[in-house]
């Protein structure tokens, strides 16, 4: 048992340490920054939970909020857990290493699952707990009930854990032999996104009665929804049911362990074989470097998935907003809404530049293969430029793909398109340069889990933290000169970015080359 605890702890530390990865900062400041960022990420969820409680407590049925949030959190956890299991367990790097240790199979699987469990508990605390606590306070529960609620809080992740394990097992069995594992992760990632955005829109104001009706009808089939709701309103009988159910779930999960282990080991050892003819073809050096950087981004499943998921956010928001009528096309195209329309067009199209900070991990992504480009007879500056171009190409393609539907849907006029394109291109360029500079200062090459390289490391957070400064530029212009047309604001801001870009290029080129040479591979 002690060994299990140690193993679970290592797994936990390994998983959560990626949030702190790439130190180099003064530890206290870094931690403060980290907590601040995490708080910013957590806040919307808590706000949603509290908001739902408020809506229903006005209607006099606060326990409905608990029911709704329970349903939400179960769905949410399941969709989070599936990609988690796929990337950290089925295709995770360290399973082979763990398998070689003299440990019972149950320990290995439980240690992996316990990381996921902790992760789910955090989600639970953000989504379900606020509504549950507020409802409990509303009904003036006794200490005993608070204890029961605490146990419920601990038990809620069990169901999503079991569901996601079964689904992950099934999908791996079905699709992995065909080498479709990237597709799989992307599929579930998109599912999660749809869920989040859908829920957000559903919770908004007048839709709450619809949400409640759904919850009620689902609760008719899926009793735990009612149990949790009644329990938080002060009924103890339901706790027994809930406990019983979770004992059954735990037993089910236990039975699943050997299968999970076998299937995961099987899929770790399985890789799709690419066929094709052996051909000899000469390409230019610059083209080859660019291809290499693009391949690193697109053929590493975690990197590609991350890129696509980030890009999917603005697309889905837009889609859902249009379809649910939050963004009425006929109103937006009216002349008095021109200002809003331009802002919508530019922010949606600039989303890749703002959200995808590919340059901030341009060097980190190489990991232990970084030495390759250092040995090759390539000028450092060309090497760096090809990394910036990689970012640029991906961003521009993404902006085009996202911007085109908006142009067609809302009939954006040419002057706006052109000035917007100029704005976005210059913004993309200057951000690509600044991000690369960040990465050069903090290369962070010795990661083992690709997720640590591209997500949640401090470089990424830094570069995101810089983004608002750039958005302030157009706001500044339109604020100072209210008479200035939208196109002029965009052009002026673009010029500022262009100037900034040349300034950085002029003054930091030597610094960037020096920093690159200093990286210890």
């Amino acid at each position, binding site marked *: 048992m002690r060994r299990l605890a140690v193993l679970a702890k290592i797994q936990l530390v390994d998983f959560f340490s990626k949030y702190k990865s790439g130190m180099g900062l003064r530890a206290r400041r870094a931690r403060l920054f980290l907590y601040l960022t995490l708080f910013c990420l957590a806040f919307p969820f808590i706000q949603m939970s509290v908001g739902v409680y408020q809506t229903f407590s006005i209607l006099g049925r606060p326990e409905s909020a608990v029911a709704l949030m329970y349903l939400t959190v179960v769905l949410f956890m399941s969709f989070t857990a599936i990609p988690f299991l796929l990337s950290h367990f089925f295709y995770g790097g360290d399973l082979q290493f763990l398998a070689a240790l003299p440990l019972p199979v149950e320990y290995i699987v439980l240690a992996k699952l316990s990381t996921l469990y902790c992760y789910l508990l955090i989600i639970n605390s953000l989504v379900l707990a606020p509504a549950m606590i507020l409802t409990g306070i509303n009904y003036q529960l006794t200490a005993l009930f608070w204890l029961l609620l605490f146990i419920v809080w601990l038990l809620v992740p069990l169901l999503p854990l079991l569901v996601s394990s079964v689904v992950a097992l099934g999908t791996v069995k079905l699709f992995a032999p065909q080498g479709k594992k990237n597709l799989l992760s992307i599929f579930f990632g998109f599912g999660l996104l749809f869920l989040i955005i859908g829920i957000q829109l559903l919770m908004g104001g007048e839709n709450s009665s619809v949400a409640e009706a759904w919850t009620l009808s689902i609760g008719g089939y899926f009793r735990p929804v009612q149990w949790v709701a009644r329990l938080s309103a002060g009924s103890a009988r339901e706790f027994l049911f809930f406990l019983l159910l979770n004992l059954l779930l735990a037993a089910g999960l236990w039975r699943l362990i050997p299968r999970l282990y076998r299937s995961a080991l099987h899929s770790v050892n399985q890789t799709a*074989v690419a066929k094709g003819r052996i*051909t*000899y073809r000469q390409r230019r050096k610059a083209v080859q470097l660019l291809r290499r950087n693009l*391949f690193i981004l697109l*053929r590493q499943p975690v990197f590609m998935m991350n890129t696509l998921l980030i890009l999917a956010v603005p697309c889905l928001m837009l889609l859902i907003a249009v379809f649910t009528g939050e963004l009425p096309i006929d109103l937006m195209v009216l002349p008095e809404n021109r200002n809003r329309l331009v802002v919508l067009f530019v922010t949606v199209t600039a989303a890749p530049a703002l959200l995808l900070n590919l340059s901030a991990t341009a060097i980190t992504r190489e990991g232990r293969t970084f030495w390759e480009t*250092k040995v090759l*007879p390539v000028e*450092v500056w060309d090497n760096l430029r090809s990394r910036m171009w990689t970012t640029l190409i991906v961003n521009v393609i993404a902006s085009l793909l996202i911007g085109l539907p908006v142009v067609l849907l809302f009939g954006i006029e040419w002057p706006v398109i052109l000035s917007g394109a100029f704005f976005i291109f210059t913004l993309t360029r200057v951000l690509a340069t600044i991000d690369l500079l960040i990465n050069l200062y903090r290369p962070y090459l010795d990661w083992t889990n690709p997720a640590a390289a591209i997500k949640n490391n401090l470089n990424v957070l830094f570069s995101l933290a810089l983004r608002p400064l750039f958005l302030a530029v157009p706001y500044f212009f339109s604020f100072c000169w209210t008479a200035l047309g939208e196109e002029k604001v965009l052009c002026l801001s673009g010029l500022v970015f262009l100037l900034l870009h040349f300034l950085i290029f002029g003054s930091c080129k030597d610094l960037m080359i020096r920093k690159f040479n200093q990286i210890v591979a």
Partner: protein
Amino acid sequence: MDSGKEVQKMLVLEEVTKSYDGKENAVERLSLTVKAGEIFGFIGPNGAGKTTTIKMITGITAPTSGRIMINGIDLAASPVEAKLNFTYVPDHPEIFSSIRGIDYLNFIADMYEIPVAQRQARVEKYAKTFGLYDKLDRLISVYSHGMKQKLLICGALLPNPRLFILDEPLVGLDPLAAKNLKDIMREHCRRGGTVFFSSHLLEVVENICDRVAVINKGRLVACDRLEKIKEESGHNLEEIFLELTKDA
């Protein structure tokens, strides 16, 4: 010298020092010269600084002080020209592996701008020598450790480099591949190329090296023709090695 034609210096290290942490020196004031056309062995116990030295020669890490000249070109001053003169096989075959073997070889060939006909001939020659040719259409990620190493060796031979640098090249290769590699190294020298490699395997060093350098705790403790070192001490290489790298 007496023939009037000065022997060309392919690799010169001048007082090269490397410190990773600013306190201890992993390599300390190392000076040595490798002449064109020789096979040069670089030996020393674990942690002596062999890999560190090779990383400095190949430009992977910059030396803290000192100068490295490759074929008469200062590595720090004109890195690209210097790098065109050598290729390198590391001790750990960690390369980007989501591409096929042939894609990797084409990539390397493009970096050294090798014409298609030449690269095809060399790929076929070397990949077939190592029994890798049939696997070139597979993703590198499914290669075994030894196969990756063979792929790296093939890639490093593609540009027919003046200086061929290898770090522990024989570790992880099967006996046939090891023999093939030794043959290739000898052949490379016969055609005027230079080989610089590090190794633990004394008998390999003894078999094929023209000269050896022994390094211990970052310092050069011997550097000469093998027969000369042996003559002077009257021991075999193993005894000499143990003697030289013994804790003082």
